[in-house]
């Protein structure tokens, strides 16, 4: 199975936890005409990590880097969920039963249903298990 097409490039940005930082990032991406498809902020005492799926990751990377930000790319996967009670349980159970650990996750609910973005410890394994269990993975081309 070609698992590569399901691996999505997430951009992660190190940010101080103070007013205006997210605005600075969002403004820069807007200026570059980069659209943010999903994002989350993880917070730890004093600093945070902004994680985003964008339509042009390289462009976003170069722009933010030139502004002095600390940037990293991380591989994540996106799973379609039923937008109804029990939807998240179905996906989480597949991973739990397979012994795959979720490092972090965030979700959005769009026009075409709900999507769960996952950062897992074993990406390839997770892709295979999710495919085999009949759930739908979104391809990278959906995002960028």
């Amino acid at each position, binding site marked *: 199975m070609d698992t590569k097409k399901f691996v999505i490039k997430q951009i992660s940005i190190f*940010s101080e936890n103070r007013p205006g930082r997210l605005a600075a990032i969002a403004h820069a991406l807007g200026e570059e005409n980069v659209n943010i498809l999903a994002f989350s902020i993880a917070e*730890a005492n004093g600093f945070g990590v902004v994680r985003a799926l964008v339509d042009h990751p390289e462009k976003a990377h170069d722009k933010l880097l030139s502004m002095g*930000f600390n940037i990293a790319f991380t591989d994540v996967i996106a799973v379609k969920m039923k937008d109804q009670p029990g939807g998240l349980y179905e996906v989480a159970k597949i991973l739990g039963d397979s012994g795959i650990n979720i490092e972090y996750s965030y979700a959005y609910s769009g026009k075409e249903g709900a999507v769960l973005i996952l950062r897992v410890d074993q990406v390839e394994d997770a892709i295979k298990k999710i495919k085999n269990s009949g759930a739908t993975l979104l391809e990278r081309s959906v995002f960028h």
Partner: protein
Amino acid sequence: MVFWDPRTEEMPKVDLQRMQYKLLKSLVYRLYSFSPFYHDRMKEQKVHPDDIRELSDVRKLPFMFKRDLRDNYPDRIFTASQDELVRYHVSSGTTGKPTVVGYTQNDLNAWTTSLARGLTSIGLGRGDVIQVSYGYGLFTGGLGMHYGAERIGATVLPTSVGNTERQIELMQDLGATAIACTPSYLLHIGEVAEKMGVNIKTDTKLRAGILGAEPWTEGMRNRIQDWLGIKAYDIYGTSELSGPMFTECSEQRGFHIWSDIALVEIIDPKTEEPLEAGEKGELTITILQKEALPMIRYRIGDISSIDEGVCPCGRTHPRVQRIQGRVDDMLIIRGINVFPSQIEYTLMAIPEVGQHFQIVVERKGALDDMLVRVELTKGSFSDKINDLMQVRQKVEHRLRNSLNVNVDVELVEPGSLPRFEGKSKKVIDKRSL
């Protein structure tokens, strides 16, 4: 191992201390009897020469400060008359009114002897060519090194500062084996040499640098040694002590303070109490043999610690570690003295963070709280909060170990801390606001 004066340099500590006591006693008697300034000072302090019964009684004597020289400009506290003086040096006065130091012939001899011992201890002597690239003139560096180098029989190349390309040509043509200058000037020489296509390592005979007159670090030593292929030695002194006076020996583990010339104490700058050997505090020096301008318990304002152990080189005289900061920069956090330079030094060894930092001190309840803000370097960010927490913990842990005080660390974005040219303001002390 070659010594300039093996009898003195290897003298057992008890004998050295006995000698120091005798010198101190006669110095105090002389000053009490003949100098109105020192007499009044001792009276104010309610100490009489008869109270000096052992070496540690030096602690009963009053301190001297730079301001004592300024307030008595130019020569009001000299204890020799003008016709006994053979030279003046004048400090630049960058931090206030200039200060004048006068020297009798014996004063110059003691200074030169001190340097002769030091230069010999790093393996220099007859046959060496020592390029003196300290300024000649009112500044003590040039002439001081000049006479020290001549005394050991080396050939002096008195280039003074400036005209760097010519300095490099002469270094090559005359085969300089050592150079005495500031560490930053040596770095400049290295850069200019590279531009000229001269490789100091292979195209010159240079093998030693005697570097001082400004603060520098072990990191800079390593860089100079690796880059230029020489050994870099620290030298210490100020014009009030005569000039550049004390050098490291071949061990490169702190400069030897010759006990027959100077008595060194380390004190707590706030309580003024003496500290144990190895503890960090303010360097306080009494020059035991000085005729024109004696200095008793002179508070230079430099921070260091002292090693009283016998040096592996065989010399019994105490070693003072590299100067680690200025008293003016010291912070007291929960009763513990903290120097920004220690923080800088600790951070330099942690690749995940940059060298720039900011210290914020606050009082939370009854306790002082110190926060150190550091920049996460590019490439050490991995997206995982856990990794970042670990970097922070590592920095906190290392700082706690080196400062002996709990520190909170905040990771900030690269380039976000203020940059300074020259003297930086890295400390925000909200306790005084």
